């Protein structure tokens, strides 16, 4: 790259991919892969997402990694960005939970409420 124009071109090219608003195109599955996430078992979760998406033939979905989101207590965390939907944050994930998220959320558009952050926190609060 030799100019600011090139920089701007890269920015435009990547913008829709990382578009976090609900007018985005395509599905973005983001797995927290900071030290906290990895030690809590994020790697098998990410691999399972890749496999399951391949198995179910989900079109236009991208699995990607990111750093520490901050809630290390609830790792492994996965955030799902779907076109036309608000972001959904899944917590305390494991490979067994992945198939349901792919089937119900990615394919049928219905978030798996029991795995979401709000639900898990509410359960915890009631448990006290």
């Amino acid at each position, binding site marked *: 790259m030799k100019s600011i124009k090139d920089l701007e071109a890269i920015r435009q090219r990547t913008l829709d991919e990382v578009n976090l608003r609900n007018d985005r195109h395509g599905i973005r599955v983001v797995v927290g892969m*900071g030290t906290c996430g990895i030690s809590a078992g994020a790697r098998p979760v990410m691999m399972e997402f890749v496999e399951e998406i391949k198995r179910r033939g989900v079109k236009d979905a991208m699995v990607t*990694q990111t*750093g*520490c989101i901050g809630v290390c207590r609830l790792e492994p965390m996965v955030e799902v960005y779907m076109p036309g*939907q608000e972001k959904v944050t899944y917590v305390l994930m494991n490979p067994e939970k992945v198939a349901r998220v792919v089937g119900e959320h990615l394919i049928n558009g219905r978030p798996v409420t029991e795995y979401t952050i709000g639900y*898990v926190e509410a359960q915890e609060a009631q448990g006290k």
Partner: protein
Amino acid sequence: MDLFRSQVLICGGTGCTSSGSPELIRLFEEKIRDVGLDKEVKVVRTGCFGLCEMGPIVIVYPEGAFYSHIKPENVDEIVNEHLLKGRIVRHLLCREAVEQQGATKSLDEVDFYKKQKRVALRNCGVIDPERIDEYIAFDGYKALAKVLTEMTPQQVIDTIKASGLRGRGGAGFPTGTKWQFAANSVSDQKYVCCNADEGDPGAFMDRSILEGDPNAVIEAMAIAGYAIGANQGYIYVRAEYPIAVKRLQVAIREAREYGLLGKNILDTGFDFDLDIRLGAGAFVCGEETALMQSIEGKRGEPRPRPPFPAVKGLFDQPTILNNVETYANVPQIILKGPEWFSSMGTEKSKGTKVFALGGKIKNTGLVEIPMGTTLREIIYDIGGGCPNGKKFKAAQTGGPSGGCIPASLLDTPIDYDNLIAIGSMMGSGGMIVMDEDNCMVDIARFFLDFTVDESCGKCPPCRIGTRRMLEILERITEGKGEDGDIEKLETLAKNIKASALCGLGQTAPNPVLSTLRYFRDEYEAHIYEKRCPAGHCKKLLKYTIDPALCKGCSLCSKVCPVGAISGEIRKPFVIDSSKCIKCGACMEKCRFNAISRK
């Protein structure tokens, strides 16, 4: 029929009509036209929803947001926030609808996130750190392009100065001033260094930034290089952070491929390149002069200052050294302006600060809050308080150089100067929360044990003085404390602070001094009553059997590994404290809760 991305359903049933929905329909249509969304958003009048008591009701699809009791003055907000910016106006939502959904589904809506303000962490948890394109998509390297094409080096320094940014590594030195010193030094070779030798127990802010957004640090270092006239940078990062190191390497490689590092960056004639140096985990290498020695390949030992690194630093050349989090703020300041940054925070501490919450707190994790937020907000509103209903006792900030803040000072707004005033310090941002079960003397002993291990041994006050302090603390926690120990600790602390060579030694007594200041009674209980009020110090505990509760089952005497418990079946047993090793096995085994520990 035309396609609309969103539909606003307004109830036109009798109930809602009488509570004013026709007026709402008119206002929505008018306002949507005003903001130019009339091709995208459709207003639909519907029949009765059956919840007339909550009318007028407005539902926005595709989200299905269910607004109740909507008044004409709410229309603006729904159109601007929800339709234009895509953010549901939660306070107007029907309360039951929120509860029925059972859960907020996204992280952004939980309490933990609401009070945070993410500047240094803005990309962490959002972008893929191993793809520079994603960083660029979020305005990455735009700040570098801006300084190289539109600003002079002095303008860059003035911007940083005006923002009020202070060093996030702990001491809080004004960053712009530091850059100015280095810029003023005349030399044909200067260096930009990044201190990523994060060593405080419980701190992981810098690691998370490097793992989550390595390009922000690289971009900021290039900006710093332009500002002071340096073309080489070094990132000094601990080898114990393999993921951070790997992602930095990937980011540096990608930046070089794109020509954002190297020769003639963005065709402006500016050259800048970066290398990584791995630290072997010595705590003292976080001290600036020791760090530079270590980069040079020498033993990491501090040297007296002046000369300061800005005059004579790495390889005896003018050098600036900033912390990871400090750098992570820089590109944002350049892009959004110093006024934006200085609008956050307190009078003397601007911007935000990242804290790593740990210890006895529910939401262990990483938070970024504006300076001036109170400790109470951090610990209770964001952190969720102590788990298991235990009582909060103190928060430790600043690691081995900092101190403990007691519950009575929970409402102190956090900034550099306030923390110093109450005997602690900002430090790099580790915050360890302690509850009623923590013994403050033992906490002081723990931190001193750490500094004694990590002292490089160059200067006697630190090498010998901290060792003597640790010995006294160990005696106290073992029940061998004597009258006069507290005074000895205070004298030693004062002398070490005044005479140690570097920051490590000068601040090492702080954990002892601050616990003495706020928890002197605990020290006195250990020394004079041979008692640990928190029930933590093992050697001071005493196990006793309550004769009224003991059924004489003999289980305890069977598990006791040293035969300290004796008695007759069906009669109360007794523990011989001279034999007891305080292992607690009897207490676990007793079925009648007859054994107590004090």
